[in-house]
């Protein structure tokens, strides 16, 4: 049977029904079908340039997403971020990783926390976001904040390096949270802190008007915290919902 209106996302040729799979006429890629729904995902991105370009576009679009969110959630998100940063388990002199730093919005708060004696490494896949973050770092003249372009699934740091790893705002969209977590556990020193924060409304608020508005503004607010994943890796996470129940914050210490 010929399947109409679906094309191979890799080469745009027609797909054929091959029992439990769809098979491409052109590149011979096979796509699984589960419960009648074909999974038309291509393993790695076509090119890294393409992925990075997509992320750059997302970053440029970010202020509009924030504006849209603000319609539903007022305008207190930046102040809320600063409050959250003050509550992190970071001490002066610590070496901290700002995991997926984006446009570097966490950097001022993290720099205040570690002081001049500590250090911050911050990475992202998006060159656009990093260029923005670099301007912040250079304007402030921070000598102990360093930026890298890197992939969360393959971190470019030595093992057991950081006193704390802080991740705000991209966990729900990682291709492989398992792989990213393994890398975080590798680079965090024993007994170090890991804090993961991302969109995800407190369960009791999901069916309220407030919860519905947030999910309209950004469907990622329907995500759950990665508790089961962390427990599967032997972690003992503490979860709380912050910023009026809009975001989950999961924090745990790595085993000593």
């Amino acid at each position, binding site marked *: 049977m010929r399947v109409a209106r679906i094309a191979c996302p890799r080469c745009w040729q027609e797909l054929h029904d091959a029992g439990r799979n769809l098979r491409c006429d052109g590149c011979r890629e096979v796509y699984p079908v589960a419960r009648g729904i074909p999974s038309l995902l291509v393993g790695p991105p076509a090119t*890294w340039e393409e992925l990075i370009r997509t992320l750059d576009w997302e970053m440029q679009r970010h202020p509009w997403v924030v504006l849209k969110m603000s319609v539903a959630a007022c305008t207190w998100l930046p102040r809320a971020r600063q409050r959250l940063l003050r509550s992190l388990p970071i001490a002066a002199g610590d*070496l901290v990783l700002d995991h997926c730093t984006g446009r570097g919005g966490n950097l001022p708060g993290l720099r205040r926390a570690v002081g001049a004696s500590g*250090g911050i*490494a911050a*990475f992202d*896949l998006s*060159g656009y976001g*990093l*260029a923005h973050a*670099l301007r912040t*770092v*250079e304007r402030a003249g921070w*000598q*102990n904040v*360093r*930026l*890298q*372009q*890197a*992939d969360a699934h*393959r*971190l*470019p*740091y*030595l*093992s057991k*390096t950081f006193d704390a790893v802080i991740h705000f705002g991209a966990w729900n969209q990682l291709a492989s949270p398992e792989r990213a977590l393994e890398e975080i556990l*590798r680079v965090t020193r024993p007994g170090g802190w890991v804090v993961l924060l991302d969109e995800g409304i407190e369960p009791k608020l999901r069916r309220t008007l407030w919860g519905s508005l947030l999910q309209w503004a950004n469907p990622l607010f329907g995500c759950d915290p990665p508790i089961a994943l962390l427990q599967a890796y032997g972690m003992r996470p503490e979860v709380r919902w912050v910023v009026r129940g809009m975001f989950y914050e999961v924090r745990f210490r790595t085993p000593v």
Partner: protein
Amino acid sequence: MPISEELLKILACPKCKGEVVLTANQDGLVCHACKLLYPIEDDIPVMIIEEAKPL
């Protein structure tokens, strides 16, 4: 913003997790084990395996 000694102490090759060293003209980081050169663009090391140049 040049690459600092402190940063070099914590950076590793994302492929083998081994040591990387700064090139003589400070425009990249080299992993001798993987024979890869990670470029430094606008003072930011690009530590992505697919973007690295083979030596």
